[in-house]
């Protein structure tokens, strides 16, 4: 059964140095507040997994949290490069980053097969591309019926999955809606799951019978963190702060400027980010 904890305790009790961790979210519901707490707690040597390591992972990588990254698209969505990610890969700053690079289809399938407790996922993937030449974790499998050759990738099963959702009820069940990404699969494939939520309600009330709900008994800890996805968004609560994504390109280009921003807006304060987090740094 899920325990209701404050964010600091939730992260402290679930995320350990060296863990394999996925903070998932496909543009929507990215668990920024939880990721910032991991940075504040100075976790080290994490293997980070995510389809779309975006600004949050750029920050975590730049702050030296990660030893390795399994991913499929490492950019600032709609804006361009992730400069901290690039600096780690190109220059080993703040230290070298091992990468295991996939395509979206393979990552998504690996999350599915992980949630299904299978050791690998099969897909018609990587045909003619160079990915298998640089990633030994992309292998071949032969269909026992048609003899076709297909791609196989190892399942994703994390030590900890961290997601953000719209709401929990008092029993610790969690509802999410909108763009769902691979969050359910990340949670169901993980040993421990931490969920931050916009609010806690007495009851979800009338709803579609097929509403996306994670039951309490698959979750380790729930923390109420309003605006916990900012500058990403929570459908029905607040929109994506596209301006922040645009501004991050400048903030993150330079190591010192990046460190100054992290010090001021993440390390030196415990509140979640708000629109004021561009003060003193935006052009």
């Amino acid at each position, binding site marked *: 059964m899920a325990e209701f904890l404050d964010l600091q305790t939730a992260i402290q009790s679930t995320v350990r140095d060296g863990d394999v961790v996925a903070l998932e979210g496909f543009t929507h519901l990215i668990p920024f507040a939880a990721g910032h707490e991991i940075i504040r707690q100075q976790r080290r040597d994490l293997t980070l997994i995510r389809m779309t390591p975006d600004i949050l992972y750029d920050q975590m990588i730049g702050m030296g949290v990660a030893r390795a990254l399994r991913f499929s698209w490492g950019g600032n969505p709609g804006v361009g490069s992730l400069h901290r990610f690039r600096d780690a890969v190109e220059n080993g700053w703040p230290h070298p980053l091992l990468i295991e690079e996939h395509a979206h289809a393979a990552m998504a399938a690996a999350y599915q097969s992980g949630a299904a407790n299978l050791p690998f996922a099969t897909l018609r993937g990587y045909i*003619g591309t160079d990915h298998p030449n640089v990633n030994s974790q992309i292998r071949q499998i032969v269909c026992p019926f048609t003899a076709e050759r297909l791609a196989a990738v190892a399942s994703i099963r994390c030590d900890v999955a961290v997601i953000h959702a719209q709401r929990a009820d008092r029993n610790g069940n969690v509802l999410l809606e909108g763009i*769902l990404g691979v969050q359910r699969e990340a949670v169901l494939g993980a040993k421990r799951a931490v969920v931050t939520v916009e609010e806690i309600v007495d009851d979800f009330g009338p709803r579609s019978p097929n509403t996306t709900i994670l039951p309490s008994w698959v979750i380790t800890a729930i923390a109420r963190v309003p605006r916990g996805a900012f500058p990403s968004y929570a459908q029905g609560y607040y929109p994506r702060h596209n301006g922040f994504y645009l501004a991050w390109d400048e903030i993150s280009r330079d190591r010192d400027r990046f460190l100054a921003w992290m010090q001021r807006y993440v390390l030196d304060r415990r509140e979640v980010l708000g629109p004021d987090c561009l003060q003193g740094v935006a052009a």
Partner: protein
Amino acid sequence: MNVKPATRSETMIVAASRALKNDDVCFVGIGAPSAACNLARLTHAPDIVLIYESGTIGTRPNVLPLSIGDGELCDTALTTVPVPEMFSYWLQGGRISIGFLGGAQIDRYANLNTTVIGPYDAPKVRLPGGGGAPEIGAHCKQTFITMALNRRTFVDQLPFITSFGHGRGGDHRRSLGLTTAGPTRVIADMCILEPEAESKELTVTALYEGVTRDDVTRECGWPVRFADTLATLPAPSEQELRVLRDLQERTRIAHGAVAA
């Protein structure tokens, strides 16, 4: 009414939008593809189905999304499915007629690189990577590519094939078991290129107004070939330009407002 002449980028978007039909089901990427698909929807293809890889099916955004998963896409969609389902049932399932791709680099057989400049293990520039592109290129019935044409983007040799086009040309695609058509059109900002029927080498088939063969030859990183009969693409109409600019203005205001 006095409309400012089209920029090359606008001409490219309009050319891409014209390539779309009312009954197409498009897998849309951010940027020029998104502008082209929504321009088509707002002009000659009102029923076109737009799908973004974040899971939004049949979406009709009022402003262009900044990211592949903006709330606007979900709010205006017929429905939104989880990402694994998008890639397995819809893309790999063969349900998409047109995939739109861009990239940092393209070669003469319409292979794309969005992974790395320089050696993979010691990159000069680490690019974002493939995302959906490898399988968009494989599973859509055909793909369109939009890219600005210059010597940095249209290159002789790719350091990395992120999305397979026609490989080394000829029947390379089919020999790997791919049954889809692959890239059938490259809509650049100076001209349109199409794979030559046999060799599959990209060949310029139409120039934009005001662009010469020499312009294209100068900017292309390989000795580019031209079709025997070379069309000139009709300039964007006033209506196309107005709809596109209105869309981009709405978008600018919406994103600016959020940024403020």
